[in-house]
């Protein structure tokens, strides 16, 4: 197994490496550390340093100049501040903080500085992009027009996400926020959308589990994971989403499509608060610094659908916000809420009631709606959101007893239960567009009304199998995404009826 070590080979490599070396005098700008601690350093000198410039501290610790003051520079350290002492020399690197980008990063797990964490060797790329970049201007953009299929019926049907959109996912801990995103990544296998998952302040074990889940489903091939776990210093956590954004931007700017997930921005805001307070920046509401809105707005503005002249690439962002006790009216959630183009709201009540994904359809919104769906899906799922929202309303007062309700309300209740059942979906099982469309169509047309609620999901699977085997023509027709004619809808309905007969015969 171990390769034989050939001494002449080693000396050849060493000789070649040394040939790159030139004995010349190094000229660089340097300052000295005045004070260090809490992941930040104050540096004397460095008169000409740029904002956000990379600094080199002794012991291979990197830093970034942030506060440029009259007689000193405040810098954050991207490493262990225990290695840095007062009086240490600080070198200017003469470049802005940047990360490696490009295809070489797909399939890799890296830290926010682009260094590999997965033991798969160095990242071989000559492409670098600055971590902080300006968002594309108005002329470089165009309206969102293609869907970014998440593979989840409830999302693609009621709050669709378009390529280039920013859709907030918000909810309490442990109710499936990340699960939605992971399913969205897995669903990009055929779509060619490159994915970047940024883990901010999570447990190392959680990130490892997620990487394993993606690997098992072959989703790591087109995915980069940026990991800044809870044990990293605050500046690393703060940097993570910007590096993830830069990696995704490379695809956007080269005519490709990318999806970036920030999990989660609550912890990102905490990290920035910690860093800012240590830098002695004035504290504002909840001790966040004054520019905490700009912190997230400039990040999310970089998601865009580029104009045709710019290659028509796109970058979709799914920021995640974790709430406490379902309170969405606190500072950071309202900030991010107002920046994004819609939100998917998750509720523990639904989650523990067995409705998974636990999306509250009434409050969730996608401001792009129709532009982010195929024409066929738009046609079939049109009023689904409103119907479900009405159902939830009726349901809440029907708890007191439904016998006194009039027939049409009872009908609505029954239909709502069927639809809710149909929109449930297991984790790691994203559905292709045609399967989603069939399920929603069957539910909305009342084609499953005579099937008991607890058998609906079995019927759904049977229906999908039936179409896959016997109705390939219709499946192909739906997959084009174009608007369906009345005859085609009749054909689909007839096929579903047909399948239902078989299903009921087996069940009986």
């Amino acid at each position, binding site marked *: 197994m171990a390769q034989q070590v050939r001494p002449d080979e080693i000396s050849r490599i060493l000789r070649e490496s040394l040939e790159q070396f030139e004995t010349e005098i*190094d000229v660089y700008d340097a300052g000295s550390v005045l004070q260090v601690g809490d992941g930040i350093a104050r540096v004397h000198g460095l008169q000409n340093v740029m904002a956000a410039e990379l600094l080199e501290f002794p012991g291979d610790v990197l830093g970034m100049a942030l506060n440029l003051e009259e007689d000193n520079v405040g810098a954050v350290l991207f490493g262990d501040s225990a290695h840095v002492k007062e009086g240490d020399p600080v070198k200017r690197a003469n470049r802005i903080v940047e990360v490696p980008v490009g295809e070489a990063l797909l399939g890799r797990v890296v830290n926010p500085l682009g260094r590999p964490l997965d033991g798969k060797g160095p990242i071989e790329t000559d492409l670098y992009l600055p971590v902080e970049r300006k968002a594309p201007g108005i002329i470089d953009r165009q309206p969102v027009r293609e869907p970014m299929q998440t593979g989840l019926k409830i999302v693609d049907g009621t709050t669709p996400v378009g390529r280039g959109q920013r859709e907030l996912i918000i909810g309490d801990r442990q109710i499936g926020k990340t699960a939605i995103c992971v399913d969205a990544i897995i669903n990009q296998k055929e779509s060619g959308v490159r994915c970047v998952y940024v883990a901010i302040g999570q447990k190392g074990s959680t990130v490892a589990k997620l990487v394993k889940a993606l690997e098992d489903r072959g989703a790591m091939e087109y995915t980069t994971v940026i990991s800044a776990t809870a044990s990293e210093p605050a500046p690393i956590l703060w940097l993570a989403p910007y590096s993830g954004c830069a990696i995704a931007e490379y695809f956007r700017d080269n005519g490709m499509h990318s999806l970036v997930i920030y999990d989660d921005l609550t912890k990102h805001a905490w990290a920035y608060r910690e860093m800012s307070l240590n830098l002695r920046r004035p504290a504002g509401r909840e001790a966040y610094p004054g520019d905490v809105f700009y912190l997230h707005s400039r990040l999310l503005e970089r998601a865009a659908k580029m104009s045709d002249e710019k290659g028509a690439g796109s970058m979709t962002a799914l920021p995640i916000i974790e709430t406490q006790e379902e309170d969405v009216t606190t500072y950071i959630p309202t900030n991010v809420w107002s920046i994004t183009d819609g939100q998917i709201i998750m509720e523990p009540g639904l989650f523990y009631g067995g409705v998974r994904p636990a999306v509250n359809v009434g409050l969730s919104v996608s401001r792009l709606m129709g532009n982010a769906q195929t024409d066929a899906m738009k046609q079939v799922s049109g009023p689904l959101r409103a119907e479900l929202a009405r159902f939830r309303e009726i349901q809440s007062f029907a708890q007191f007893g439904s016998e006194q309700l009039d027939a049409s309300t009872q009908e609505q209740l029954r239909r709502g239960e069927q639809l809710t059942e149909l929109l449930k979906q297991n984790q790691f099982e994203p559905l292709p567009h045609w399967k989603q469309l069939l399920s929603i169509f069957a539910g909305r047309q009342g084609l499953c009304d005579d099937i008991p609620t607890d058998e609906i999901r079995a019927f759904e699977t049977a229906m999908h199998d039936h179409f896959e085997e016997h109705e390939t023509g219709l499946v192909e027709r739906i997959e084009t995404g174009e608007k369906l004619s009345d005859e085609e809808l009749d054909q689909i309905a007839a096929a579903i009826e047909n399948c239902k007969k078989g299903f009921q015969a087996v069940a009986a």
Partner: protein
Amino acid sequence: MKHTRAARAYAKALLHAAKQEQSASQLRQPLENLQRTLESSEPLRNFLANPMIAPSAKQEALRRLVDEEAPPIALAFLTLLIERKRERELEAVLEEALRQLDEAEGVERAEVVSAAPLTERQQAALSDALTKAVGRRTILNVARDPSLIAGFTARVGDTVYDGSLRTQLERIRKILSQPSSA
């Protein structure tokens, strides 16, 4: 913090006043002497910093310390400094004033650290080379540090000219540990 805004303002005022009296060039010697005395004498520093000692006593002490031939403005300045209770800033003010003098005269100071002692000729050559590189007359302050192994480093302002063996070995280490060469 050593360099306070006050120190800068006082130093600037001193130079401005000296320039009007045409005595700026004679200011350097007494200021340098005073700086050296302060650096070498901790009792003097404590004496000046002690708020229990009357300002008049401090003024008297400084009067004796300053050279006879110093321009009168230097003494007047020190008296004012103590009157304003800024004696703690004295060191910073002196440093800042000397720096501003250098700037006005177009002189740069270079902190040179070498592994082995430099000969007169080497120093002159280094000074010439730095003068050429910086574009201003450069005066060397030489120190020794054997940990550089061989060669020297020179620091002018923020810019470091590093020709030490230590740094070159460090660079070799980086090149050899670079993954791309494997």
